[in-house]
């Protein structure tokens, strides 16, 4: 335990408000204003977690979203949030903080011995080793050893509100560059949106300090805030812009209140800053090794220090202010600077041309090996330079160029639609940040000036991983990737950075490789003798930092995830005892009454054959096609000619895709000379409408035809069964004499009524359609007449049985993505039609003419009903699939199972025996005609 709290320093903490919390069960105290990470550091906790693969002890490393180690499950107010970065969570009283992937605690993890096997666990070890023994067997055990936090099943936070917004100018990041840009634009009157992930504005000004225009940074921050508000802009703190998408759309996660923003910005200035790079040496993952920038951040904001005897290793000037601040706080500081010369360093010990080659210690740092000699230390701070945060730039399609003098990949101008300023642009130092920001905000000169002390000239000597050093050097802390793993990947040929990433998992952890990608890339470049730009980077993808699914999904979950369409008569059906289920996007009655659903479905189907049944057929599409050219249009879009249909009649037909495959089937009604109604399948209405529109707009150039989708405007109730007509007459509904496939438009109760004698059951059926506001009156009328004829309401489960008994098909169930009409026995139009129609040419390709196509047939079995989807195999011989069962039911009227199946060359095999394979067993079935019930159709016409 060597972290401690300074007596007076710490700008954000309130020492009058102590907060009690626990870490792995141990009671600790922090202050209001602390983050979980700063409170742990101040309390002297060194091991905050265990590494992903080897279970090595790990300590705090960073200051924000780049933190690879301090990942916790945090319970507060009874709920647990998993995988929280300690650096990003404000401490609250009563928090229970637990390390992830440890048992029982981070300090005493029982899997710690795994690390001793590291020699045998290189990159790819698990896959190479356990594939042979059957990965499925080993995976659960291996997964139990790795992984992150645990979900709390009781914690179902409300989805974040989803807000769409637009702004003329969005500035991302409120460090000095972002502030200067936002202020300049605001002072010119622009309504700027300033986005800051942290709880407070200022970015590095908050810990690096400095003077701007002769004043302290807080004055500059306050003046910027005032200018933005005066110009009508907005300031978002605690809000992470996590993704850049096409056409300048950005997604942002606001924590308090919890909101998810989709922001369309006319212009974007990216001032996301930079993240400090590590330095690589043996055991550089020991608790006590951390980023120098993070140590300064901890000291200035929270008064939290990582140790009392600290070595700072660096090769640039940015580490010096850190060392001075630590020394002023009473720490014994040694700088190990790799360069032979550097700034003067009063008050700290300095070693020039000195590098740390190893960290000493078993569970935490006890010393640093500098140029071969051991020096006692309880913390080692690394300042390996800075990597610009170019994530959003690259997500937006921006390219990067290698800049040797800044030792970084920086945005190539004009390759993405945003302006990058400050450290994100590789322009390190306060003066550069202010001047670039001011100019990006189109500010009037001069730019805000910085004092010279704060504006380090910033010469950077490159630091790279050295494969010659003995010991294990960690490149990716969160995913446990060492420099040797990178070497192994190179030797095995995974030299592309994208392959390196996937082979070693480097950069794939939830820190998105913020501290590891550069090291891995530099090491691979060195291994393969390429330059860094030749080696390239992996692709940057959203999200910039993990975003909870409840934020992304918002209220779209459970019932609201994909809301079904609802029937106008839903509540009436509920009163009648209906049990609902979704069919093709519609919530429809499945069965009525209490009891076993399959029994109720059987009973309903039996009633329909015996007396009469009523069902709600409203979702059936109703597309009105009107005008002098309507017939011409339908002839082109349909497989069956419709222009020859007589007014007052209906005809069954198909609609094909241009590839000849059936898209939909249904009945087309022609209630009047110039008016047709296309009854599309309930789930295909939009698709059919657009196919009709395509022909209307493109082929007919909109002349002489209009299309009108009136599906929702009408309610259709269907009466089917031998007593259907009797029941309608009892109900006082005037049913004229009409033939099968006849259509009549009449009136009932002063409202329009359309009666169509169309049957989906094979029994006498009347489809009664009324405007939806008359639906309940019609329902009540029919309901009253039902009892006298011993009829009942039936749901879709019964209708499915009735239609299958007749061999009537459902597109997409009894057909698949290659079924053509002649496969169903509807070869007539294909052979006879001379005129052009959609999909026609495709019906005459060699494939379509093949005599081994799958055709729809019936199957008869003695056993229990077949399993839908079961494959058909030869009755004897090798088990090759000849097709599959598409529909299968017990038929109450026949007292035996019925089934439909797609079978290769099926009609030629009529009467033969075939095997039906399911779950290892084969039962025999006889190939039979599609229609199993009343093949002569006497019930329909009688």
């Amino acid at each position: 335990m060597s972290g401690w709290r300074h007596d007076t320093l710490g700008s954000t903490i309130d020492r009058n408000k102590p907060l009690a919390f626990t870490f792995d069960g141990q009671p600790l105290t922090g202050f209001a204003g602390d983050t979980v990470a700063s409170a742990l550091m101040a309390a002297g906790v060194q091991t905050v977690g265990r590494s992903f693969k080897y279970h090595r002890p790990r300590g705090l490393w960073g200051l924000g979203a780049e933190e690879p180690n301090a990942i916790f499950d945090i319970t507060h107010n009874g709920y647990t949030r998993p995988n929280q970065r300690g650096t990003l969570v404000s401490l609250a009283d009563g928090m229970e903080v637990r390390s992830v992937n440890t048992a029982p605690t981070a300090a005493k993890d029982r899997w710690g011995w795994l690390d001793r096997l590291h020699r045998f666990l290189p990159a790819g070890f698990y896959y190479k080793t356990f594939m042979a023994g059957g990965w499925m067997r080993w995976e659960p055990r291996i997964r139990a050893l790795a992984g992150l936090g645990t979900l709390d099943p009781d914690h179902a936070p409300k989805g974040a509100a989803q807000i769409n917004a637009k702004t003329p100018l969005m500035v991302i990041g409120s460090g000095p560059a972002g502030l200067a840009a936002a202020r300049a634009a605001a002072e010119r009157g622009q309504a700027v949106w300033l986005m800051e992930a942290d709880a407070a504005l200022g970015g590095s000004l908050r810990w690096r300090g400095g003077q701007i225009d002769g004043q302290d940074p807080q004055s500059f921050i306050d003046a910027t805030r005032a200018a933005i508000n005066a110009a009508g802009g907005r300031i978002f703190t605690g809000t992470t812009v996590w993704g850049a998408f096409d056409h300048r759309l950005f997604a942002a996660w606001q924590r308090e209140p919890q909101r998810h923003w989709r922001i369309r910005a006319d212009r974007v200035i990216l001032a996301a800053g930079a993240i400090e790079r590590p330095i690589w040496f043996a055991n550089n993952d020991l608790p006590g090794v951390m980023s120098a920038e993070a140590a300064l951040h901890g000291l200035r904001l929270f008064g939290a220090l990582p140790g009392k005897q600290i070595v700072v290793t660096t090769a640039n000037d940015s580490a010096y202010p850190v060392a001075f601040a630590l020394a002023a706080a009473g720490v014994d500081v040694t700088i190990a600077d790799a360069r032979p010369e550097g700034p003067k360093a009063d008050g700290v010990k300095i070693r020039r041309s000195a590098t740390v080659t190893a960290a000493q210690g078993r569970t935490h740092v006890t010393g640093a090996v500098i140029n071969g000699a051991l020096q006692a230390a309880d913390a080692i701070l690394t300042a390996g330079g800075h990597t610009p945060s170019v994530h959003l730039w690259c997500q937006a399609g921006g390219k990067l160029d290698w800049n040797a003098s800044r030792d970084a990949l920086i945005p190539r101008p004009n390759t993405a639609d945003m302006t990058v300023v400050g450290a994100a642009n590789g322009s390190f130092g306060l003066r550069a940040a202010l001047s670039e920001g001011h100019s990006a905000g189109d500010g009037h000169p001069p730019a805000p000036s910085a004092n010279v002390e704060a504006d380090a000239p910033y010469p950077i000597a490159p630091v790279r991983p050295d494969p010659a050093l003995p010991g294990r050097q960690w490149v990716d802390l969160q995913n446990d990737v060492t420099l040797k793993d990178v070497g192994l990947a190179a030797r095995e040929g995974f030299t592309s950075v994208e392959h390196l990433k996937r082979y070693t998992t480097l950069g794939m952890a939830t820190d998105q490789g913020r501290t590891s990608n550069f090291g891995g890339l530099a090491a691979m470049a060195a291994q393969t003798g390429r330059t860094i730009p030749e080696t390239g980077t992996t692709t940057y993808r959203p999200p910039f930092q993990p975003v909870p699914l409840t934020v992304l999904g918002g209220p779209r979950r459970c019932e609201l995830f994909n809301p079904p369409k609802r029937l106008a008569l839903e509540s009436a059906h509920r009163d009648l005892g209906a049990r609902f289920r979704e069919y093709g996007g519609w919530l429809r009655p499945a069965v009525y009454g209490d009891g076993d659903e399959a029994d109720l479905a059987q009973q309903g189907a039996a009633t329909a054959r015996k007396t009469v049944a009523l069902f709600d057929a409203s979702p059936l599409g109703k597309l009105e096609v009107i005008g002098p050219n309507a017939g011409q249009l339908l002839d082109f879009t349909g497989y069956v000619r419709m222009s020859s249909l007589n007014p007052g009649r209906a005809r069954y037909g198909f609609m094909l895709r241009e590839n000849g495959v059936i898209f939909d089937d249904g009945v087309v009604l022609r209630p009047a000379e110039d008016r047709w109604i296309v009854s599309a399948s309930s789930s295909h209405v939009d698709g059919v409408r657009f196919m009709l529109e395509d022909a209307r707009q493109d082929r007919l150039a909109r002349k002489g035809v209009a299309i009108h989708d009136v599906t929702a405007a009408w309610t259709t109730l269907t009466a089917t069964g031998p007593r259907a007509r009797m029941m309608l007459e009892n109900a006082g509904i005037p049913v004229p004499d009409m033939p099968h496939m006849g259509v009549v438009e009449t009136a009932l109760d002063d409202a329009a009524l359309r009666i169509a004698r169309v049957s989906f059951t094979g029994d006498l059926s009347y489809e009664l359609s009324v405007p939806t506001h008359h639906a309940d009156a019609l329902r009540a009328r029919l309901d009253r007449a039902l009892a006298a004829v011993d009829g009942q309401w039936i749901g879709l489960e019964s209708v499915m049985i009735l239609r299958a008994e007749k061999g009537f098909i459902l597109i997409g169930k009894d057909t698949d993505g290659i079924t053509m009409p002649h496969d169903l026995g509807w070869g007539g139009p294909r052979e006879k039609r001379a005129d052009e129609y959609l999909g026609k040419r495709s019906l005459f390709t060699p494939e379509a003419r093949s005599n081994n196509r799958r055709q729809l047939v019936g199957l008869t079995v003695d056993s229990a009903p077949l399993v839908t989807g079961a494959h058909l195999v030869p009755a004897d011989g090798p088990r090759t699939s000849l097709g599959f069962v598409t529909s299968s039911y017990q038929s109450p009227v026949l007292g035996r199972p019925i089934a439909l199946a797609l079978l290769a060359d099926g009609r030629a095999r009529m009467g033969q025996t075939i095997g039906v394979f399911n779950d290892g067993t084969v039962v025999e079935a006889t190939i039979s005609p599609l229609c199993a019930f009343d093949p002569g159709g006497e019930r329909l016409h009688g």
Partner: protein
Amino acid sequence: MQRFPCPFCGLRDETEFHFVVEVGHPRPEPAEDTSDADWAAYLYAYLAPKGAASEIWLHLTCGEYFVLHRDTVTREVTGSDPLPGAAP
């Protein structure tokens, strides 16, 4: 999320649109005189240009088909036109 200009409704999110076909990809007619190879090319062989492209898109919410001009690399949208015979 790209935004496309429907000639009838203005700028809308891409989720409101559906790609239909490339411009300059007419249906060969009479189709029955078309060889199998040419018909297959009509069905499946698209140019998918890298760069400037003109395509027919459908605006699902208003039901209008139109021509969209865009760059498939930069995602820049350069304009849209109604089909012949339609006036926005």
